């Protein structure tokens, strides 16, 4: 029996529930005409989002009924056998939930609204009989959902409307918070876009898996599930998963046997259903994409300029050595970068090691303390005896990997080439000292790539160390245990790409590549392996200006993908071919061309009037004026206190973006 048949059997036989979201204390209000006696009778209950055999359901159960459901929840959480079928190693959803819950503090305002729950006494009769209570339970499929209207009156309440408007749903009152988390959980499976006429109304379209695609399940073969859904509900499935189907059909037509072992009649059926769709896809009939398509307008052509010369740099200094007209200076650096002679000094400002308004004297004093501090930390690992190290496995592991990686970093660059090159010792010592500076993080592969260009420019151990520390402040999250920085960036990139190029985004989705894994190396070490050494220097100094928007490096990704999408789609690359193609772009990219395009994309997005808030939040549009006070840097360790705000921009943005996405739901 072929394995695809097995899948059919299993899908038919076993029923798999997975609770994606659960929130207690959601209230429904019984409307007065139904319950004339109790005019504003409120029922408390639990709201869940459930993955039932791949169908996403929203389920509301009044309080007493939730006991049973919580059992289901436990089973779903604890037993991987229950949820293992579709998700693989299964703690991802909990992690997601946990991150969502970590936003909870922002909801103090909502939660603080006192709300007195109406006691449910026997005297109130009918509601205590479980069958009566369960009268108020309801379930609907996310794919049947037309829109959700978000209102707030001290607490948030949501009005869900189904496509079939004849069955109105009770209003959901989130007296105990959780509405945003609920919407977030839906966003994992559906696209919620603001209705053009009414900002409080979110239009729902499904399916949309990319943003939720965890790394764990990225290889799950879900094309069957899609076809299954498509047959059930071609219209809804078409919206999000369209290219998935067309791609499947293209494969079937080309007769690539590997991919599908379906009975001929099934393929024939499917063809019959899909062929009209094929036309629609090719012609991009607006009816199908109207919800997500935003007209971005033409992309402006921009010009790059010459690098800033040493002379121009000096002109921006006052007699005491303070940098003046800094915003103009940054603009020039953004447009053309720096000539190499200026880098050694200018990078310290760009990275925030030196305040722009410090005098030469102040900088000399700073340099002295920083030098002392560096050597104090260096001495710490230098003075660890063999005995001690034997009992310190973490230090041992850091050292062992640093030794290995230093010998494998930029060895073809003249600065690092040859045996016993002193630069290698510096690279090693700085990384070891960084372990002392931040022992929790220690050394993670990729960090030597970030240090190497900095050391090359600084040609000085202490300066290179502190510049590296500043750069690591921006990159820290990429390397942390949970790699949250990477996950956040991949999601943000996906959001941007979907706005810029829905067709390509859909294509990637259809190839199980919507989570953009192939951009991992780009993001982890900021294109260090993709560009020639000197282009890396150029890109990094341009990025460090913090112009022209937050997260400009994500637009750099978009610019590169924009240049590659034609090849990828024309060649009909699949999952592994896309990965291979992107990996092989390394050292073939032209940085000036990419920067030009990325800036054009930034201007193009900025001039768009109906920009989704998620996008403005990522790029920091609308936060530049009011939100530029770098108080978020307070948490930085003492040596980081001298940093300027642009070195903090990432951390800062994370703050503002969570506030902003909060506004998406509760702007009014």
């Amino acid at each position, binding site marked *: 029996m*072929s394995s695809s048949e097995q899948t059919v059997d299993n899908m038919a036989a076993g029923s798999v529930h997975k609770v994606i979201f659960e929130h207690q204390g959601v209230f429904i209000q019984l409307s007065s005409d139904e319950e004339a006696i109790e005019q504003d009778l409120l029922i408390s209950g639990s709201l869940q989002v459930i993955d039932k055999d791949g169908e996403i359901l929203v389920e509301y159960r009044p309080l007493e009924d939730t006991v049973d459901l919580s059992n289901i929840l436990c089973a779903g959480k604890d037993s991987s056998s229950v949820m293992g079928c579709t998700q693989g190693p299964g703690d991802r959803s909990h992690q997601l939930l946990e991150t969502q819950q970590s936003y909870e503090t922002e909801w103090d305002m909502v939660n603080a609204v006192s709300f007195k729950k109406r006691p449910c006494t026997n005297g109130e009769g009918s509601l205590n009989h479980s069958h009566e209570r369960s009268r108020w339970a309801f379930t609907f499929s996310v794919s049947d959902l037309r829109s959700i209207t978000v209102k707030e009156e001290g607490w948030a309440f949501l009005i869900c409307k189904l496509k079939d408007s004849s069955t109105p749903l009770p209003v959901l009152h989130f007296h105990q918070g959780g509405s945003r988390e609920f919407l977030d959980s839906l966003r994992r499976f559906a696209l919620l876009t603001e209705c053009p006429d009414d900002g409080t109304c979110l239009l729902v379209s499904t399916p949309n898996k990319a943003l939720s695609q965890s*790394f764990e399940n990225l*290889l799950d073969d879900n094309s069957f599930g899609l076809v299954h859904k498509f047959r059930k509900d071609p219209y809804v499935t078409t919206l999000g998963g369209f290219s998935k189907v067309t791609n499947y059909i293209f494969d079937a037509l080309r007769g690539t046997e*590997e991919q599908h072992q379906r009975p001929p009649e099934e393929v024939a059926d499917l063809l019959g259903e899909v062929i009209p769709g094929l036309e629609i896809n090719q012609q991009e009939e607006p009816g199908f994409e109207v919800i997500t398509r935003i007209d971005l307008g033409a992309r402006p052509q921009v010009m790059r300029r010459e690098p800033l010369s040493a002379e121009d740099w000096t002109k921006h200094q006052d007699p005491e050595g303070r940098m003046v007209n800094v915003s103009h200076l940054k603009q020039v650096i953004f447009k053309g970068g720096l000539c190499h002679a200026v880098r050694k000094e200018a990078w310290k400002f760009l990275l925030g090691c030196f305040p722009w308004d410090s005098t030469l004297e102040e900088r000399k004093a700073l340099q002295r303390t920083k030098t002392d501090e560096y050597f104090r930390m260096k001495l710490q690992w230098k003075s660890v005896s063999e005995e001690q190290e034997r009992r310190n496995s973490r230090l041992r592991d850091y050292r062992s990997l640093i030794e290995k990686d230093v010998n*494998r*970093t930029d060895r073809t660059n003249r600065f690092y080439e040859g045996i016993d090159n002193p630069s290698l010792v510096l690279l090693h010592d700085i990384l070891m000292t960084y372990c002392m500076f931040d022992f929790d993080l220690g050394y*993670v*592969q990729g960090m030597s790539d970030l240090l190497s260009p900095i050391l090359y420019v600084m040609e000085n151990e202490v300066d290179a160390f502190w510049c590296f520390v500043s750069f690591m402040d921006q990159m820290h999250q990429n390397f942390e245990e949970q790699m949250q920085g990477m996950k956040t960036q991949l999601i943000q990139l996906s959001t941007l790409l979907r706005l810029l190029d829905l067709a390509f985004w859909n294509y990637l989705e259809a190839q199980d590549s919507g989570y953009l*894994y192939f951009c*991992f190396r780009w993001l982890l070490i900021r294109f260090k392996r993709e560009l020639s050494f000197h282009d890396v220097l150029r890109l990094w100094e341009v990025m460090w200006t913090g112009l022209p928007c937050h997260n400009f490096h994500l637009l750099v990704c978009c610019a590169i993908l924009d240049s590659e999408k034609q090849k990828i789609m024309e060649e009909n690359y699949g999952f592994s071919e896309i990965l291979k193609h992107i990996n092989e772009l390394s050292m073939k990219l032209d940085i000036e061309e990419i920067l030009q395009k990325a800036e054009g994309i930034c201007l193009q997005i900025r001039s768009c009037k109906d920009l989704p808030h998620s996008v403005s939040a990522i790029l920091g549009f609308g936060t530049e004026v009011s939100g530029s006070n770098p108080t978020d840097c307070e948490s930085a360790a003492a040596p980081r206190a001298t940093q300027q705000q642009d070195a903090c921009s990432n951390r800062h943005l994370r703050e503002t973006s969570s506030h902003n996405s909060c506004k998406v739901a509760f702007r009014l």
Partner: protein
Amino acid sequence: FLGIHMEKKKTSLLKVILLGDGGVGKSSIMNRYVTNKFDAQLFHTIGVEFLNKDLEVDGRQVTLQIWDTAGQERFRSLRTPFYRGSDCCLLTFSVDDNQSFLNLGNWKKEFIYYADVKEPEKFPFVILGNKLDVVERQVSTEEAQQWCQENGDYPYYETSAKDAINVAVAFEEAVRRVLAIDERTDHFIPTDTVKLHRKPRSAATCCS
């Protein structure tokens, strides 16, 4: 869609994955095998890469898709999704690094867990002790052989990617092991249904 085994005489695509501590030489082994080159200055791997290699083993055409990953613990969540659908796993250590040898068991466990292997005791692992060219060994041949014997009677090869010793042999053995399992499976399938079938693997069907 990976690792599809089709009618005999046609090319089979086999997915092989190289696992082991950072710096044991996974990328060098892959490059030696596929391009027959060795570059001591090669970067350490960030993320995931793969190369294809066509070969013929015992009269059968095979395309090997060799996956190479970043070895550091931290990158686990980014590497493990690629385990699924593997037909064979090459567990690699370096003979001059005892710790990398001690970690073999962890790599095996990680692979079995994330690759969702149905019958771990039957899964074809091949063990490679690389850097045979290095003078100062920390792991003896006997130790390594003993581990292989005790952990599932795995074939063991001492390789040198640098000096091109035993690399091709090890990959060919890996292919033989995979094909041998196929043969056995074939016998259990009524002959009239065997035209095109997936090898018993997990990427597409996860609840059989």
